């Protein structure tokens, strides 16, 4: 399979990349890991006139904790998240998701930020970022702006990015001392897209839920938050009743479609089971009684 012809630019600085993107606009595509974009180009679902390859730009591969949270640069590979002790200790939903994404070889190239920018409703990182309440930092000709993740996904493969904008990083807020999360994914085999995925994040305060985040994969036109379930948990004590109630509300937030991976009813049921399981896992890890 051969992609259509394109011009290729490996800029050394972000400024150079931005000016190239400004020139080509809609006809330019930003290349990071390429593990979603290149397959689309091979099928000619995507045929950009110019590819702007970020891989030669220094400083975009930072996975660091800084004031206020965790910064994940545009070139941070999923493999780096899989290997990060910091993520295992402090950002558990991310750590649990990483080794479940695609397969080990794809994870060596594929990036977190690229997955978000791709805005595939079957993408795993989007649900995780919704659960943890991340914010996306984008740069364009108009300067830098921050987009809350819940405003980022606008439809299947459609994000809030302008054609001249590049996501430079995604920032995960500091979860606080008593927090945890997890990601549960049902897949038919390694490397397949999720049949269903559920990301859960909990932060606790005096035995009660300070903030709950629940993100759902592959059950709506975008990754979605189970907002009603989150609201029901906020301020509540975690017990069998509150967890079961939240799981039911999460299942109601799913709008799955029957396809070769399963029926709509089956997928909705899995959302409920995974939400309950995920909340119990996160509650235990966060030290709830």
């Amino acid at each position, binding site marked *: 399979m051969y992609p259509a*012809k394109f011009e*290729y630019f*490996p800029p050394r600085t972000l400024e150079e990349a931005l000016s190239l993107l400004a020139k080509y606009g809609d006809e330019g595509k930003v290349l990071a890991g390429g593990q979603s974009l290149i397959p689309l180009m091979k099928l000619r679902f995507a045929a950009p006139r110019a590819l702007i390859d970020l*891989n030669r730009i220094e400083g975009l591969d930072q996975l660091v904790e800084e004031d206020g949270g965790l910064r994940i640069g545009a070139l941070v590979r999923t493999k780096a998240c899989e290997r990060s002790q910091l993520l295992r200790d402090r950002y558990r939903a991310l750590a649990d998701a990483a080794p479940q994404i695609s397969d080990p070889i794809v994870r*060596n190239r594929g990036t977190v930020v690229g997955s978000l920018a791709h805005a595939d409703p079957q993408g795993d990182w989007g649900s995780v970022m919704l659960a943890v309440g991340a914010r996306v930092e984008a740069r364009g000709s108009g300067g830098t702006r921050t987009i809350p993740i819940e405003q980022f996904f606008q439809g299947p493969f459609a994000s809030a990015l302008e054609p001249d904008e590049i996501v430079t990083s995604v920032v995960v807020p500091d979860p606080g001392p008593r927090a945890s999360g997890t990601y549960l994914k049902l897949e038919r085999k390694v*490397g397949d897209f999720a049949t269903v995925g559920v990301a859960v994040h909990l932060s606790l305060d005096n035995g009660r839920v300070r903030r709950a985040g629940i993100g759902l994969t592959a059950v709506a036109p975008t990754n979605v938050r189970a907002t009603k379930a989150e609201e029901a948990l906020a301020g509540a004590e975690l017990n069998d009743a509150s967890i079961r109630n939240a799981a039911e509300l999460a299942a109601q937030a799913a709008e799955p479609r029957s396809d070769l991976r399963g029926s709509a009813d089956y997928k909705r049921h899995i959302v409920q089971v995974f939400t309950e399981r995920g909340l119990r896992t996160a509650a235990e890890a966060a030290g709830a009684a």
Partner: protein
Amino acid sequence: MNEQAAPVGGEPQMRRRVELVVNGQRRSAEIENRLLLVHFLRETLGLTGTHVGCDTTSCGACTVRLQGTPVKSCTMFAVQADGLAVTTVEGLAQGGKLNPVQEGFKEEHGLQCGFCTPGMMLVSAALLEENPNPTEEEIRFAISGNICRCTGYQNIVKAVQWAAQKTQSEQAATTVA
């Protein structure tokens, strides 16, 4: 090399000259930007040890090591590898001596048709460099991006275990000597 962008409206540059270090040798060519790394290796350089399996980023038969890291060469353009080092299955043996992973596949019958073998061996070699004594589970996890359709995983795992043991006993011998 044309590093600068041609202005929009100027002559679009659809080709580039690249230079890669492939199995330790500098290899230079002028290629189309859209040429996939796997086709550069197989067709431009004639290194047909790297296989095209699914061509859809699923099977791992096209795996090569880029700067030491296993990547799917069907999901990368050759221009992206400009200036970088690539190791293919042809580069596994050093100085006429098989890599322990290659010996293991031979000793433990780690292949039937051989189609997945180059990718399996490159991933396994990378695993053993990082984790010289992996558990069976770690081996299976590491090769989970490589599909074998002869259902030979059992012997592939044994082959990697064989290579791990061989490497460790060789190192122990060196330490004693």
